[in-house]
C-alpha cells in the first residue's frame, strides 16, 4: 500500500542503513551523509527536564509512591488548567478526573511493582494529567511534560480516560523518551508506538489479573461509542481487525512485514506499522503463557533500556535485543518463543548479538 504515486517519497532510515551495509562505496557514502542529515533533523526531546509550567504539584514523594496532580482544562486548550485533585485527595465525582487519577496510579504501580521503575524518569517524576481538554477533543497525548485527555466527540469516541491502557500508553511515551528516545518517525516511531501499546496493555492485564489467554489484547476497548462497528482502536493479537466501520474505514494495521505500509502520513505510519511489533509481542507472550508481564514484558523492557538501542532503531535491531535479553534473563525456551514471535511477522533473527 502506498501514497499517491504523484507524491515523492523520502528514503526511510532503515533503508539507508541497508544501503550503508550492502551498497557500493559511492552509495554507502551518499547514504551515510543522508542518514546523518536525517538524524540531525529529528532530535529527540529526551527525558522530561521539568514538570509543566503552572502545574500544582504534590510534594516530592518516596520511591514506590505515585505523585499525581490532576487538572481540569475546562474545555479550553490551555494547559494544565485548574488543579482539581492532588495525590491522596478523595474522589471528586468527575468521572474523567477520577478515572485519570486511578489510571495514573495503576500505571505507576505497574512500572514500579513489575519493572522497578520509579515513574517516567525513574526519579519519581510527578504525574501531571489534564482532563476535559478542548471541546469534544478526540485525542490523548504526552507533551513532554504531562499527559492530556480529551472528552471525545460522543459520536465516535467517548472520553479517553475510560480505557486504562490509553492512560498507561501516554505515560509510557514519557518512559520511552526517558530511555531509548526512539525517534517518532518510520520504523523507530512505530516501535515507539508499539512499546507504548505493550506497556499500556500490560498495565491493564496486571490490574485485571489476566493471563495471556484471558486478555483481550485490545487497545482502547472502551473508547468507541456503540454506534461504531469496532472493538477498539487496535488489536495487538490480530492487527487490522479492531474496527471496520463506514465512518472510520477499516483498521489499516499490518501484522506482517510483507504488508508494511510505506506512507508519508502520520510520520511514516507510526500508528499503522506498530501492528507488526505488536503482533510479535503478542505471539511471544502467547508462546510463553501465564502472565505476559512476567517474561515477555520484562524482556521488552530490558531491550528498551538497553544502551545499544539507538534512537533510530528499526524493527530488526529491536528484535535482536529482545532475543539477547531473553537469553540473558531467562533461557533457551524463552529465546525460541521470542525468536518465533518475530519470525511469524517476517522478522528473522538468525544471528545473535
Amino acid at each position: 500500500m502506498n501514497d499517491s504515486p504523484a507524491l515523492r517519497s523520502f528514503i526511510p532510515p532503515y533503508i539507508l542503513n541497508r544501503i550503508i551495509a550492502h551498497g557500493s562505496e559511492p552509495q554507502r557514502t551518499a547514504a551515510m551523509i543522508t542518514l546523518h542529515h536525517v538524524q540531525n533533523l529529528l532530535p529527540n526531546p529526551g527525558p522530561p527536564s521539568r514538570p509543566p509550567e503552572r502545574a500544582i504539584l504534590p510534594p516530592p514523594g518516596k520511591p514506590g509512591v505515585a505523585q499525581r496532580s490532576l487538572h481540569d482544562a475546562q474545555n479550553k486548550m490551555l494547559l494544565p488548567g485548574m488543579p482539581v485533585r492532588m495525590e491522596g485527595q478523595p474522589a471528586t465525582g468527575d468521572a474523567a478526573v477520577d478515572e485519570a487519577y486511578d489510571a495514573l496510579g495503576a500505571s505507576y504501580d505497574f512500572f514500579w511493582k513489575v519493572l522497578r521503575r520509579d515513574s517516567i524518569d525513574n526519579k519519581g517524576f510527578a504525574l501531571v494529567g489534564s482532563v476535559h481538554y478542548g471541546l469534544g477533543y478526540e485525542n490523548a497525548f504526552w507533551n513532554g511534560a504531562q499527559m492530556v485527555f480529551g472528552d471525545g466527540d460522543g459520536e465516535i469516541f467517548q472520553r479517553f480516560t475510560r480505557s486504562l491502557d490509553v492512560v498507561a500508553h501516554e505515560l509510557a511515551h514519557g518512559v520511552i523518551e526517558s530511555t531509548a528516545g526512539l525517534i517518532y518517525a518510520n520504523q523507530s516511531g512505530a516501535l515507539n508506538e508499539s512499546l507504548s501499546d505493550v506497556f499500556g496493555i500490560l498495565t491493564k492485564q496486571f490490574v485485571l489479573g489476566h493471563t495471556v489467554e484471558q486478555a483481550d489484547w485490545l487497545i482502547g476497548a472502551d473508547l468507541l461509542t456503540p454506534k461504531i462497528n469496532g472493538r477498539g482502536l487496535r488489536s495487538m493479537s490480530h492487527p487490522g481487525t479492531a474496527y471496520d466501520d463506514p465512518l472510520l474505514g477499516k483498521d489499516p494495521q499490518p501484522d506482517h512485514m510483507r504488508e508494511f505500509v510505506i506512507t508519508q502520513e502520520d510520520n511514516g505510519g507510526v500508528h499503522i506499522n506498530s501492528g507488526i511489533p505488536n503482533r510479535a509481542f503478542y505471539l511471544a507472550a502467547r508462546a510463553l503463557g501465564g502472565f505476559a508481564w512476567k517474561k515477555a514484558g520484562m524482556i521488552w523492557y530490558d531491550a528498551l533500556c538497553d544502551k545499544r538501542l539507538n534512537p533510530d532503531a528499526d524493527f530488526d535491531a529491536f528484535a535482536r535485543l529482545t532475543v539477547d535479553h531473553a537469553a540473558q534473563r531467562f533461557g533457551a525456551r524463552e529465546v525460541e518463543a521470542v525468536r518465533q514471535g518475530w519470525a511469524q511477522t517476517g522478522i528473522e533473527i538468525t544471528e545473535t548479538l
Partner: protein
Amino acid sequence: MKTLPALGDDARVRLSRQGGFAAIHAFSRPREIEFAQCDISQRTRICSVLEGCLPLDSTVSGRGDQRFYQIEVNYRSGEQEDRMVLKVPEDQAPGELVHLWDTGQLL
C-alpha cells in the same frame, strides 16, 4: 527556517491534520487547493497563511501522540516538480490555517 518558494499556476497545497492516539486516516480530512483555481487575492492570502506557518514548522511534530497539521506544497521550480512539507503542532497552529483546513475558506 524554510522559505516559501514562488508559487505559480501549477502550485497545489494539501492540508491535513495528522497524528494523535486515534490516528485514523478519515480524520486527517485532507484538503487540496489548486492555485490554478484561485484568483490573485486568494493566492496572496493563502501564501500569507503559509508564511505564518514557516516559523512553526517542527521536525518533532507528532511525538507522544500530539496531533499536527501537515502542509504539503507541490510546485514547479524551473523545469522540475518540487515539494515542501511543513508540520505545525496543533497547539501552535494559527486560526487561519485551521479554518482553511476545516472549511476550505479564508478568514
